[in-house]
């Protein structure tokens, strides 16, 4: 009898249910939810400055463009792109700034287009190369002026977009961010007010610009600017001098605005043409000395000198 029971148990002890392999998918290794500083990656120095002013010690700004590169045309390495991908926030200037961004894969949810609020007021650059091929017909590579922060009312909007994004990630720090923004806004408003006054005083006086980066400055503050394609450190060619001479016929400027300190020869020759030089640095990259505010104050002071 015992043997029957034993045999029965042995036979009936088979388990029917075998679980499936189960779902072995591994879950995302999302960044640990840490209360350390937010990593904020930016594409130019003005955004870095705004983020630092607004975020304070709640942010760690990542601005990997080398100091001697133009952030608008710089191409990051793959490792640098990975740094951008891993940031908590990626601040874009908008207006087609940073030519590398459209060709890179960045997480949409982390992107902040700081100039989205005034995208309908971007300035389109004329005289770009168009071409046609195939059945599609003509199409142009549209150019958009991208130094949006030189219109300080726009700079305030960009700073506000940064504030909003930071509050979205750290709502408990809203007061801190608001305070940082308020202080920055006041300074930007002061700059804006001064330049409005300068613009009024200039009253449409013709100006030359060494490079087409002052479109928003000109529009906002009523400056009558005609741009050429010169570099501060390079002496213009004969054709470039000739171009300026031609421009002067219809546009008799007495000042040329430079992005940086011009070559002595360039400045001297311009003087000979009755054109003085002044520097209004767009400050796209981190300055050697000072910061965004000190550079802009110096810019405003340089323009102010025209009014005396």
């Amino acid at each position, binding site marked *: 009898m015992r043997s029957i029971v*034993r045999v029965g148990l042995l*036979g009936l002890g088979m388990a029917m249910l075998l679980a499936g392999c189960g779902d072995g*998918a591994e879950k995302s*290794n999302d960044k640990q939810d840490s209360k350390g500083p937010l990593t904020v990656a930016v594409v130019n120095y003005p955004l870095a400055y705004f983020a630092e002013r607004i975020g304070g010690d709640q942010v760690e700004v990542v601005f990997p463009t080398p100091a001697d590169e133009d952030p608008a045309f710089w191409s990051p390495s793959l490792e640098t792109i990975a740094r951008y991908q891993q940031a908590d926030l990626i601040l874009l200037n908008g207006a087609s700034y940073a030519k590398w961004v459209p060709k890179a894969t960045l997480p949409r949810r982390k992107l902040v287009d700081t100039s989205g609020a005034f995208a309908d007021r971007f300035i389109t650059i004329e005289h*770009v190369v168009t071409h046609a091929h*195939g059945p599609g017909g003509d199409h142009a590579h549209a150019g958009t002026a991208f130094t949006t922060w030189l219109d300080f009312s726009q700079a305030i909007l960009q700073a506000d977009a940064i504030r909003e994004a930071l509050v979205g990630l750290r709502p408990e720090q809203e007061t801190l961010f608001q305070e940082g923004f308020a202080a920055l806004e006041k300074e930007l408003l002061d700059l804006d007010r001064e330049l409005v006054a300068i613009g009024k005083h200039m009253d449409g006086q013709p100006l030359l610009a060494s490079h087409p980066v002052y479109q928003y400055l000109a529009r906002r503050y009523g400056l009558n600017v005609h741009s050429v394609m010169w570099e501060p450190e390079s002496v213009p060619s004969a054709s470039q001098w000739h171009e300026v001479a031609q421009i002067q016929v219809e546009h008799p400027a007495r000042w040329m605005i430079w992005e940086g300190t011009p070559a002595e020869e360039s400045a001297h020759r311009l003087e000979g043409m009755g054109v003085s030089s002044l520097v209004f640095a767009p400050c796209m990259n981190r300055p050697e000395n000072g910061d965004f505010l000190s550079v802009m104050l110096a810019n405003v002071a340089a323009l102010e000198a025209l009014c005396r």
Partner: protein
Amino acid sequence: MKDVLYLAWRYLASHRVLTSVLVFAITLILFLPVGLRVLVKQSERELTTRATATPLVLGEKGSPLELALNTLYFAADTPPTMPYAEFERVADSGLALVVPLHTRFRVRNQPIVGTSIDYFDLRGLTLAEGRQLAVLGDCVLGASAARKLAAGVGDHVVSSPENVFDIAGIYPLKMPVVGVLKRSHGPDDDAVFVDLKSAWVIEGLGHGHQDLSRPEAASGVLKREGDTVIANASVLQYNEITPDNSDSFHFHGDLGDFPIQAVIATPHDERASALLQGRYLGDDERIQVIRPLEVMTELLDTILTVQTYVVTAVVVIGLATLSTGVLVIVLSLRLRKREIETMIKIGGSRGRVVAVLTTEIVTVLGLGVLLAAGLTGMTAAFGPALIRILILS
């Protein structure tokens, strides 16, 4: 115990055909309803898990099931496209995290999924080797795709033309494999992931070519009119995006008009979900918003209905088979009456004899149970793949 097993085994071994038939019948009786139940449970899990992780999907108005299947499983039949501007519209609304999907193309039999890097976080996909997508042209392979395409980090894959006579200009794009994902036991394992813009390049909406202003491209220039350069068809277009030529790649037209197949939206909360769905309720809306879980649940209900009928039929057949099996055993015992009587007569213990006979029956049952369990296990293991083949093909 040993002796009982020995005698039982000797009997079963010497009657292989009878034993096999009985084991087979028991296996079927047990496996069919259980295996079916496991398969249906797998179906339920397969169809609902992924759907649950995909709260809302936006797509061009049409079949919700087709949209759901294409979004969740990259099914071959591509639903109509919608403009990329719709994705931007939802993204800008701030109501949800959004991920675009472009699923038109393939690398051989593996779907090319043009998407954003957020997709990987949405699905919890992590890298087994290599790196994430970084620049235009990069591709990251799912674990199975890497195996089927025999490609790994450092290799290249080429997008397949849609048809043999694809002379209209959708050029195959050669893409470097920069990463391979860990196995996720889902449809993502079969995919070739690219940035959405790379998918548009494959579609011919973006391209790179020689700089027409340079002397080397002179033969490609038809004429120049001021700042406008008109090129002829001989201008060299690149079929691979490299660090050297990536700057030349550009898109013509408004990106907002470019096609995508679907947008996956994860609303921030219920209110956001309601608001988002509310936007697309109008009859004149070109866009539909579906909840994949609802669509898949409907599909499941159909499967479950079928299951009920099948299980009923299987149970009835099973009972008949079981009755036949019992009859076979009873008749077999009757035929062995003399053998049993002999054992008793020469002094064998009745209990022992019964134990031997019981062991024979239990062994047959046990083998049937074991086989059924094995088949059930295999069903559980291969169920998801089978479901995908059955439902999605």
